């Protein structure tokens, strides 16, 4: 199935597990927990990203007998992102728009080459990528821009509908043209 496993509509699901260098797990944890969210955060500079998450697993849950415990020798940094388009442009965007932040967490991982060597960075992500078995999206062909614009447009339509109540046909048509002239 190749890359189609990671796609649904125009959305892509990226899941990356990278082993953290011995003794550096707490530092990585501090770094990722300090990443600002919202407009001030690095992910807001990636306009194709709907959702993203960074977290660590340093042990696997033991659920009791008859499970044979799996004890990890490394902690892993998990990066997941749901974004518009293909993986390659997304990785380019990571290297161009949030290189310092990306390096701040991945530089504590084994074998990380840095975003400065973009080709090596892409190979690293590909090597550590976990393929998605099943991916579901509620609005699979809507980009982040589509979602944001539509949410704002819905508010404008609502305001217009209230303001236009009681207008005669000619005034309604004129106000509509003025308000939604750019909508095609």
């Amino acid at each position, binding site marked *: *199935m190749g890359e189609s496993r990671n796609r649904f509509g125009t959305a892509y699901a990226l*899941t990356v*597990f990278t*082993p953290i260098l*011995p003794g550096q797990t707490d530092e990585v*944890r501090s770094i*990722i*927990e300090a990443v600002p*969210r*919202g407009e001030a*955060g690095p*992910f807001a500079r990636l306009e194709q*990203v*709907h*959702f*993203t*998450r960074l*977290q660590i*697993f*340093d042990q*696997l*849950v033991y*659920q*009791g007998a008859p*499970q044979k415990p*799996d004890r*990890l*020798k*490394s902690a892993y940094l*998990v990066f*997941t992102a*749901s974004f518009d388009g293909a993986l390659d442009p997304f990785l380019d965007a990571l290297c161009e728009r949030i290189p310092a932040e990306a390096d701040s967490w991945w530089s504590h*991982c*084994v*074998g990380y080459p840095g975003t400065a060597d973009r080709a090596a960075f892409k190979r690293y992500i590909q*090597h550590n990528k*976990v393929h*998605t*078995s*099943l991916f*579901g999206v*509620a*609005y699979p062909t*809507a980009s982040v821009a*589509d979602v*944001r*614009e*539509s*949410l704002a*447009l*819905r508010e404008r*339509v*609502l305001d217009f*509908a209230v303001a236009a109540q009681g207008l*005669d*046909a*000619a005034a309604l048509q004129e106000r509509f043209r003025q308000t*939604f002239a750019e*909508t*095609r």
Partner: protein
Amino acid sequence: MAVRVETADVPNGSTNAAPVPGNSHGRHTALTLFSPIRKRWTPVLRVAMWFGKWTPVAQNHILQFNFIHFVRWAVVRKLPYNGPPQERDVLNYPYLFFESNFDGPWRQYIDAFAYCIPGDIRFVWGRGIAFPGPPPAEPLKRWIAENSMEGGTFYSAYPEASTRAVLSALAVRDGLRKLVANADGLDADAFKARYEQFLTEVQVHL
């Protein structure tokens, strides 16, 4: 990896539960589970997920709850090895990585799954080890609390928009575009009739 904040004695859907750092942004929550699967069940799960991906009925079934934005499953047989100083990890079991981004607190989310589609839950996770097949939901919540991956950071590009709001906004946009495209050349009375038809069609989304 265990949940650090919410406890099983918090009432369902309670807003008193403190937000879990790294798990929420605005009204959105991320739930991540990484749990072992019985080896013999893995091929069945892979086939089921293949059907889930390629058959529209299955896709609609997966997304039947209008509070899920994005959801993913990945069957993980081995962990990446990058050479020294990493020591290779060899797993005794395949693991199922699950991540869902949805509206509201996760206890409500689990309630919906436990009571509405218990068969699906048992099918996907029920072949895991020590899995408490729902219903009831409370043992499942405890199991999730023990298996959920916490901490880190979580980002949403539109943290205050519910799935329903997004779907409604897209429907309004599509309706408006149609109205604009059809409005050219209409006289005022004909336009008013089209506009009122548009409002009727989208009023459920406003």
